[in-house]
C-alpha cells in the first residue's frame, strides 16, 4: 500500500518540513528551549507538545532505531504493531521516570539507546538467527528498547527542574508531541523506504545499510560512554 502515494502524503510532507530543523542534537536541548523550560510556570500544552515533537524529529538516535525497526516491515499492519509497541514502551518510562523522579544517568541511557540501534541492525541482517540459532522475539525487543528510549526522553525533561505545578499535563503534552514528531518522521522514512524498495538496489544495499546503521550505533555508544566517563 505504500507504493501508491496516499492523498494525505503531501500534507504530511508539509508537516514534516515544518517540523524539521537544521540543527540536530542527540543529547540535551537547545538554549532557547532551556530558557523557556526554566522560566515557564504552570500548564503550557502547545509549547511542551512542540518541544516533544522537535526532540523526536531532530533526535537521530530515536529515528535511527525506528529506521532499523521498519526497514524490513512491508505490511502497514506490521508497521502499526511495531510502532505501537515502541510507543507504549517509551511512553510508560517517560511518564513513570519523570513523575516518580527516577534518577538516571543520561549518558548511560543514551548509550543503551545507541546499543539498541546496533542490536536492530544486527537483527536485520539475521545475525541473531545465525549466531544463536533462533530469532529472539522482535516484538519484545522493540518494546524493551522502547522502555529505554522513554527513560532517555525522561532524562531530557529531568535536566530542568520543572515546577511540580502542571507537571502531569505538561508531560502528557510532551508525550503527545513525541508521538506526533515520531509519526511525521516515520511517514517521511516510510515514503523514502517505499520508493527505494521498488528498486533492485534496496536488496543489494540492505546489508550495507544495516551495517551503516550498526556503525552509527557504535558511534553513539562511544560518544555517550565517553561522556559518562569524562563528566562523572
Amino acid at each position: 500500500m505504500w507504493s501508491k502515494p496516499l492523498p494525505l502524503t503531501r500534507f504530511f510532507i508539509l508537516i514534516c518540513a515544518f517540523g524539521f530543523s537544521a540543527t540536530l542534537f542527540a543529547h540535551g536541548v537547545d538554549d532557547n528551549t532551556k530558557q523557556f523550560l526554566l522560566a515557564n510556570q504552570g500548564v503550557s500544552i502547545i509549547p511542551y507538545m512542540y518541544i516533544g515533537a522537535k526532540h523526536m524529529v531532530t533526535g537521530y538516535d530515536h529515528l535511527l532505531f525506528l529506521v532499523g525497526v521498519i526497514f524490513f516491515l512491508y505490511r502497514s499492519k506490521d508497521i502499526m504493531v511495531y510502532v505501537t509497541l515502541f510507543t507504549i514502551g517509551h511512553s510508560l518510562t517517560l511518564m513513570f521516570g519523570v513523575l516518580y523522579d527516577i534518577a538516571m544517568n543520561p549518558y548511560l541511557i543514551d548509550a543503551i539507546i545507541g546499543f539498541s540501534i546496533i542490536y536492530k541492525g544486527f537483527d536485520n541482517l539475521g545475525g541473531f538467527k545465525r549466531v544463536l540459532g533462533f530469532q529472539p522475539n522482535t516484538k519484545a525487543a522493540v518494546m524493551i528498547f522502547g522502555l529505554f528510549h522513554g527513560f532517555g526522553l525522561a532524562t531530557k525533561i529531568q535536566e530542568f527542574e520543572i515546577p511540580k505545578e502542571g507537571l502531569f499535563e505538561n508531560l502528557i503534552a510532551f508525550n503527545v508531541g513525541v508521538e506526533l514528531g515520531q509519526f511525521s518522521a516515520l511517514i517521511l522514512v516510510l515514503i523514502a523506504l517505499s520508493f527505494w524498495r521498488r528498486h533492485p538496489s534496496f536488496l543489494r544495499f540492505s546489508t550495507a545499510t544495516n551495517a551503516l546503521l550498526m556503525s552509527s550505533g557504535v558511534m553513539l555508544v562511544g560518544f555517550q560512554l565517553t561522556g559518562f566517563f569524562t563528566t562523572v
Partner: protein
Amino acid sequence: MTQLEQTGSTQHELEHSVQSTQTLVKASAFAGLFGALILTVAILPAEYNIDPTGIGASLGLTALANAAPLEPTKQTVTGQAGEFQKHSTEITVPAGKGLEYKLNMLKGETILYSWNSSGGELFFDFHGEPKGDKTGYFESYTVSTSDTIRGSLTAPFDGSHGWYWENKGSSPITVSLKIAGNYEIIGIK
C-alpha cells in the same frame, strides 16, 4: 536475492533474510571499525577535545570542543562596563502611560538608588531581565505604588535592571532619580 535464505517463519512476520556468517562478520567488522574511526577522528575531538590520533586537531575539530567553555569566562573578563558613577535625572511619565528606565549591570554589581515623584504616587515594578533572554522572563525585586523609594540592588544576573513606572492619574508625573554604583545607563525604553 537467490543466495539469500528466506526465514519464512510465521512467529515473526519479518520478510528479511539471514545473511551468511561471512557477510555477518564482514558487516559487523565494518560497523565496529567505521564507527570507531569516526568516533576517534571526529566525534571525540569535536565534542570532548579527546584527540588520541591528532587528526581531530589537524581537521580543526578540537576548536569546537574548546569554544564552548570559553564563553562564560569571556563575559566576565570583558564585562568591566559598569564603573563606579553617579547620576541624577528626571523622567516624566505621561498621564495614563507607563515607561521603563533601565541600567545595564553585571552579576554582583551593586547600586544605591532613590527616587521620588512630584505630583502623585506611581505604580512601579523594579525588575531585571537576564542578558540574551528572548522568552520575556523577568524577575521583580519590588512591585508597589509609592511616591518615594530608596534602596540598593546587587544584580542577581547579567542583564538590564530598572524600573517600570505607570502613571494611572490624569496629569504627567515627574520622577527624579538618583543612582550611584556600578552600572551603565540604557535609559528610557
